[in-house]
């Protein structure tokens, strides 16, 4: 039930799809042609591999920018009856009160917002530095990732902390930021079987993404290190350390510094 507007420019290249009887998905590109490196098209065949760094591709970056713009517009001008918004790489899930709206009506409202997307000015991205103690008990998968990618642990650390990442969106659990794009040489698949409990603050990688676990949760990402920073705090006004659109850098620290920082932020 995917349909495209006749006037594509008017809708900023968006397509709509019914997700449930009370939610509508807005896609800013064909979801399966971009995104996570391990994604493949549904009916077999090889994914278009011409793009080495799919998250950094202009298509994905532009789509994500549109997601952020639409989100910002809808947060500034909340619509009564629209109950929740779930942004992701190239899409926004709009959850609404099904007693008040039909999908068509919500689509109409969104269409109105989409015509104004070009006028939205996103805030200057914040630059956030996250200290990480790599390896050892904090990064149990560092050695394996190094072996997989035929380099030393030090090189993995060097690479992981060498780039600036974009917060594409927050999802999964409160304060979990999906960061990209991981340097090509670090791309490694998820663990075959996820851990039952990943300690809070763990810094992991999965395919071409990286992120920090805000809470002790189950997880299948490969763990390179841990940060003493609290990613999500209920007693802090902005709750989450990172917000969508932020830029992030990881700064290697040693165990001593980790302990000292952990104490100050406890």
């Amino acid at each position, binding site marked *: *039930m*995917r349909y495209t507007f006749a006037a594509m420019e008017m809708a900023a290249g968006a397509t709509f*799809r*019914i*997700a*449930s*009887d*009370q*939610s509508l*998905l807005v896609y800013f590109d064909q*979801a*399966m042609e*971009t*995104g*996570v490196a*391990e*994604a*493949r*098209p*549904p*009916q*077999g*065949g090889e994914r278009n591999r011409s793009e080495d760094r799919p998250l950094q591709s202009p298509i994905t970056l532009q789509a994500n920018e549109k997601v952020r713009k639409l*989100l910002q517009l809808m*947060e500034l001008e909340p619509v009564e009856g629209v*109950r*929740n*918004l*779930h*942004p*992701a*790489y*190239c*899409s*926004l*899930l709009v*959850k609404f009160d*099904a*007693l008040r709206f*039909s*999908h068509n009506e919500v689509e109409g409202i969104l269409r109105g917002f989409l015509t104004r997307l070009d006028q939205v000015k996103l805030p200057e991205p914040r630059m956030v530095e996250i200290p990480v103690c790599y390896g050892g008990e904090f990064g149990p998968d560092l050695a394996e990732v190094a072996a997989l990618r035929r380099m030393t642990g030090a090189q993995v650390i060097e690479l992981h902390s060498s780039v600036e990442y974009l917060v594409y*969106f*927050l*999802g*999964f*659990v*409160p*304060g*979990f930021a*999906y960061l990209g794009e991981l340097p090509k040489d670090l791309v490694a698949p998820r663990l075959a079987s996820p851990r039952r409990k990943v300690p809070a603050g763990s810094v992991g990688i999965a395919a071409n993404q990286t992120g920090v676990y*805000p*809470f002790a*949760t189950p997880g299948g990402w490969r763990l390179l290190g841990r940060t003493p920073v609290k990613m*999500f705090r*209920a007693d802090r006004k902005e*709750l*989450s350390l990172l*917000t*969508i659109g932020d830029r992030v850098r990881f700064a290697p620290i040693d165990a001593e510094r980790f302990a000292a920082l952990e104490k100050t932020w406890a």
Partner: protein
Amino acid sequence: MGVIQVLEPGLFTTVQDLGREGYGPLGVSSSGAADRVSLRMGNRLLANDQGAAALEMTLLGGAFVFPEGAVIALAGSDFGATLGEKPAEMWRAHRVKPGQVLRLGPTRSGARGYLCVQGGIEIELFLGSASTHILSGLGGHEGRALRKGDVLKIGTRYFKSVAPWSASMPNREWALSPRTMEVLKPRRVICVTDGPQSDWFSEAAKKVFYETTYRVAEDSNRMGIRLEGAAIPTPAGGEMTSEGVALGAIQVPEGGQPIILFVDQQTTGGYPKIANVISADFHRLGQLRPRDEIRFQRVEPLGARSMLVFQEMVLANDLRDRRSLESEAWLSKRRSKL
């Protein structure tokens, strides 16, 4: 102000209300009661706001003492409650005397029972809701399930003029109509609409999904209901670009055993979704126990909407005077005999 003291917490008891909406951009899921219809109706029997915070018990109830007394109602599944040694009927208000103990046992019907108190449970709200989100340890009572010795405050806000045994109507007590009891009756067929990736699945895969009777797995919880049964052939690749996921989304990971995302759900996910449970059936998901068997039936989004509208009309026009309802039932029984 009255309090509830926890003598026995039961298997997994948390504070829940109707949840928090609007924090998806932070990755915060809505949480809230697993069976919202039961919570709402339990609260209304007490003349509470229908979204007042209550205790949600899972499979095995606890024991609670009310040192200053309280007015309570038990909603959802029947946990074989006794109040001061006497059986305490479901779906009606009870006056608890100071120091009296409410004991609940293992469930006799579905998965979740609600202990509603007049005035609601008063607790510090997190993002506008009293609901507990266990995975992140946020909301509710210290962000966790209740333990022995916990003390919870009882609030004072309720609609006093229509409260049972209030000064304005000393003889009145509320009951649910048979039509509402019908909404609450367990049903093994869950209605779904197409999911956003329905067309990724082959016709054969959909046939498997709609013709299989699935069993609820032991490790199901408020985050997700895991199902066991015939494996659904997954689209090649299995994983896709992560996107926002709706409540009740049925995702099919590699291996083909479907998972229904539930109230404490992750806000985004990377597995294709073959279908999505309709809003009018969410409360039924909350009553599924491990090993229960269910099947799925496909409906159109418009059909799903009219089912929701109908259900809400039934619930909105509910609450009957208990006595007149009882005499009606007695009369109709007489009539059928004649």
